[in-house]
């Protein structure tokens, strides 16, 4: 795309992908984090990004945000090249990082107001939306306390609200349900489903809890050692692993080559 070209010149048609990652490579020194990763997130769909620890999930998500620059390949958010127009892309993305790092010297309300300022959310919208989210996630009454006094789950809720408050078109959620109580986790899952189905938001969702992935994801992308080893619906993956009717855990372990754990379990049980 030429430098003077508008970042919005190639917004996809409704129903098209909100995120397209194409042949993305990224290394840190001699360590290859992701290699030739390609996938897409269609509008209105929740795509699960699964993989063992160190598989490259977080690097992939950070590349989508423009937080790390791929060595090769391209990433487009609503048709906007993230490396060329990072600010325009970020304006349309909501992000919840894996390790929640908030400004703990702010109150929850101050943090959310701060994030709203960064995203340019108009005053009327934030006065309406922030209290709604606080009430929905049972944070109301705590919003004027310092975040340093929050539990891990409360911090996660603040991070979730910060990711959702500005009406993003793409959500990038790295372990978003970490530390949430069952009710809040249920609320978040339902909100994500509604955002996808009714508002056409595309969601890239990383988790190690395979039951959650199986329950809410429309598509799955499985990474192993920085490469995509399988993509598709749960049924597609079951067929591919030759485990039709099995749970996602068995499918996942089979596809990532970590299926036989009996020796490890036996050694650790002694």
């Amino acid at each position, binding site marked *: 795309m030429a430098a003077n070209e508008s970042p919005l010149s190639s917004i996809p048609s409704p129903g098209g992908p909100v995120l397209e990652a194409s042949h993305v490579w990224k290394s840190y020194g001699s360590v290859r984090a992701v290699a030739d990763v390609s996938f897409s997130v269609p509008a209105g769909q929740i795509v699960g990004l699964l993989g063992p620890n160190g598989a490259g999930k977080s690097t992939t998500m950070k590349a989508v945000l423009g937080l790390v620059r791929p060595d090769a390949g391209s990433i487009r958010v609503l048709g906007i090249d993230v490396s060329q127009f990072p600010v325009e892309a970020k304006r349309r993305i909501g992000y919840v990082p894996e390790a929640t790092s908030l400004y703990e010297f*702010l109150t929850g309300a101050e943090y959310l107001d701060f994030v709203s300022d960064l995203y340019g959310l108009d005053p009327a919208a934030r006065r309406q939306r922030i209290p709604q989210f606080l009430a929905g996630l049972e944070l109301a009454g705590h919003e004027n306390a310092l975040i340093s*006094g929050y539990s891990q789950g409360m911090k996660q809720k603040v991070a979730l609200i910060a990711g959702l408050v500005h009406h993003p078109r793409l959500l990038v959620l790295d372990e978003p349900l970490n530390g949430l109580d069952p009710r809040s986790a249920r609320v978040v899952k339902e909100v994500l489903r509604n955002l996808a189905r009714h508002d056409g938001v595309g969601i890239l969702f990383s988790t190690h809890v395979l039951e959650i992935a199986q329950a809410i994801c429309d598509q799955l992308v499985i990474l192993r050692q920085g490469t995509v080893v399988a993509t598709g619906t749960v049924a597609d993956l079951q067929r591919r692993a030759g485990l039709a009717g099995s749970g996602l855990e068995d499918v996942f372990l089979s596809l990532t080559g970590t299926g036989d754990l009996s020796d490890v379990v036996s050694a650790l049980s002694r």
Partner: protein
Amino acid sequence: MDLHTVRRISSVLVASQVRSGRSTSNPTSFFGQPIVFAVIDGVVFVVLFVGALVLLPGGSPLAPVLRSVLLSALPFVPLYTVGAVLVAGIMFELTATAKFSGSDAVNWLPVSPSEYVLGSSTAIAYTYSPALAFLLGPLSAVALRVGLGGSVVLVAFLGVLGLFMGAFLVEMVRSVTQRVGRSGGRRGRYSLALQAVALLLLILAVQLAFNPVFLFDSLSALGVLAQVSAYIPPFWSVHALSLWLAGDALGALLFVAAQVVFAVLLLYAAAELRVRYWVVADTEYRFEALEYAADHPVLAALGLDRAESAIATKDFRSLTRRREMLPMLVIPFVLFIAFLVENAGANSTASPLGHGLGLVLAGWSGGLFALLLAVASVGQERRAVQTLFAAPITGRSVFRAKVAAVLLPGLGVTVAVSAAASVIYRIPLLDTLAYLVVAGAAAVAVALWGLAFASRYSDFQDRPRPQYLRPLPMTVASFSGLVLLFAILLPGAYALGASGTTAVAAAVGAAALALTFGSVGGYVARSGFDRLFRELPF
């Protein structure tokens, strides 16, 4: 108390300190081992000892003079070590986040608070022991040449005791400061501000109470040094050494014993305080309900947009609410107050020299504050900086916000301290206003200079002893910034007191320096922020 446990705790804490600045190097290398401080002690001592021996051959005609100097200087070595550990402790130990300076990492293990305090204090004393080796090396050589070699053993013993006393005091302050970061249960932003002010005063009091220069000068100024010093614990080691050097061994031993007892009492007090904060409950600090989307009229008037104003406002809150930022606030005031007390005599306040010194120090305190804020401004974001990286803002916006967040408090302190100097030194209003221009220009120049380093060498890692800049750039930034401050302030103050072409030349020189370094710093910082925000640095 299990001394093996104390030794293990101490060893682990020292290891965490020597590795805190080395994110990429091998932690198992020699420089990542606790032994490294002992080696530094040995090398510093031997090099300075041998160097001094070579420079001062036996039978030197200088020996009588040096003996006289040594008789005056040696007694103050232990007091100096207490002050050195306190200054370093306030600078580096209190900057640790509550997560690391609290006892949560060990309080679930079979370790008692006393064992933890002694282990932690030993780690602090050991970490700063090179300061003592730096003094003892040349002093021992000179003492040997002038026939006072035997006294060095007592100096060394009391010096090591001084290191521990300083460490116990740091531990006490550290335990108390847990309250700001971790617990509370009170309502309203004023309770937090009051606690911060109380802590500032506490740190200031402890700093001054064990600052040898401050103690000596203030008691001398009051004319009561001789009468009261024997009753002031920090002076007991001074008395012990003075009596020893005067040949009164019994009197010396009595004061040594008293000093040891005082050190044990400090340890006891430190342990008791740690017991009190051994398990600190996370309690909510509640603030008044926030008005969402409030305007920032002052920042908007300065040309900042809403996102930039939000970042600057967030940094103001960081400065007043975070315990690890307290040293930033306290250092300029400690320096200024210490200077004021040292120059409290009527003659110095009324003299032109006193005017000049007062103004220079006022400008220097404000400039130092701006410099410290600037170098810490990016690294103090820690891992939460990813909020800024993920947001739809440019590095240029963050730069503008940081300039405001550094300059507004920096200039505020400069004005406040200059006004105080103006009152104390009875400086005419016009002179004060003219000097404020100089001091303000110096503060702006060093702030931009500091931001240039912050934009390129900040450290975002969550470490036991957080560093806002990587060690070498921090050293370069601090040293060059302080030199720059003096280079602007001294000719600026001179220009105010003098007349004719030299005064004009001095004024032009000061302005040129401020403009040059401010512009270079601003340019480098701006491009540094652009570069920094291309990719998350961790």
